[in-house]
């Protein structure tokens, strides 16, 4: 591990910024360019970069494969259940306006939760894909 000192230092500096940028894209997505897909990919890229530079084992101690699979399921469930909340509260499926008393606030809440679900699933799926290809011997 004495090699690639430059790479490792630069990655250590970059990875927190990448994750932070992913969070910015994620939570800015309700009224600006961005959203769950993009944020998820950026977030996943942070993990993948860590895995490439520091080894599969290190990244898997941070994000164990079973947890990654569970997170991706949780994301889909979050998405679908937020959708189901619409009919529960008297609207149609995926109708966010009924989530809160104020329709505009309801739309904000709905899209943030939906994008969170998308982001979780995309980030964990990207990481899981990396594991699937990197674990091969």
């Amino acid at each position, binding site marked *: 591990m004495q090699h690639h000192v430059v790479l490792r230092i630069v990655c250590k500096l970059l990875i927190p910024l990448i994750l932070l940028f992913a969070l910015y894209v994620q939570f800015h997505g309700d009224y600006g*360019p961005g959203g769950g*897909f993009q944020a998820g990919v950026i977030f996943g890229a942070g993990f993948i970069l860590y895995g490439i530079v520091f080894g599969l084992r290190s990244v898997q101690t941070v994000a164990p494969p079973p947890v990654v699979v569970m997170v991706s399921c949780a994301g889909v469930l979050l998405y679908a259940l937020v959708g189901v909340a619409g009919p529960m509260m008297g609207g149609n499926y995926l109708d966010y306006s009924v989530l809160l008393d104020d329709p505009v606030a309801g739309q904000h809440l709905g899209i943030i939760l939906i994008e969170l679900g998308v982001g979780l699933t*995309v980030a964990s799926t990207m990481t899981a*894909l990396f594991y*699937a*290809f990197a674990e*091969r011997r």
Partner: protein
Amino acid sequence: MVHFNYWVVIVLIMTGLYVVMAQTNLVKKVLGLNIFQVAVFILYISVGKLAGGTAPILAAGFDRYANPLPHVLILTAIVVGVATTALALALVIRIDKAYGTIDEMEIEELDKEQE
């Protein structure tokens, strides 16, 4: 050359389809498939471009906005493309494990031998 974008798309589509058909190496087939798909993405996105139009974000001084819908559609299609590529590569890896080769001709011969 008003419609040069269509020519680009047609050339790319043909390149992609040719690679899919002509190559026997499975990884190259996946590559061809990707070129083919990306060509279609370009078709959508170039159709959505409006000369002199800007991104559809309300701002002072702009009154021509490009239609954002084709881009959103293609975002979905790109995600589908990524999923397809990942699945295809995973299959290629499994095929490599099972047959010891990723060349279509050799795989066919191995299957024939077994029968």
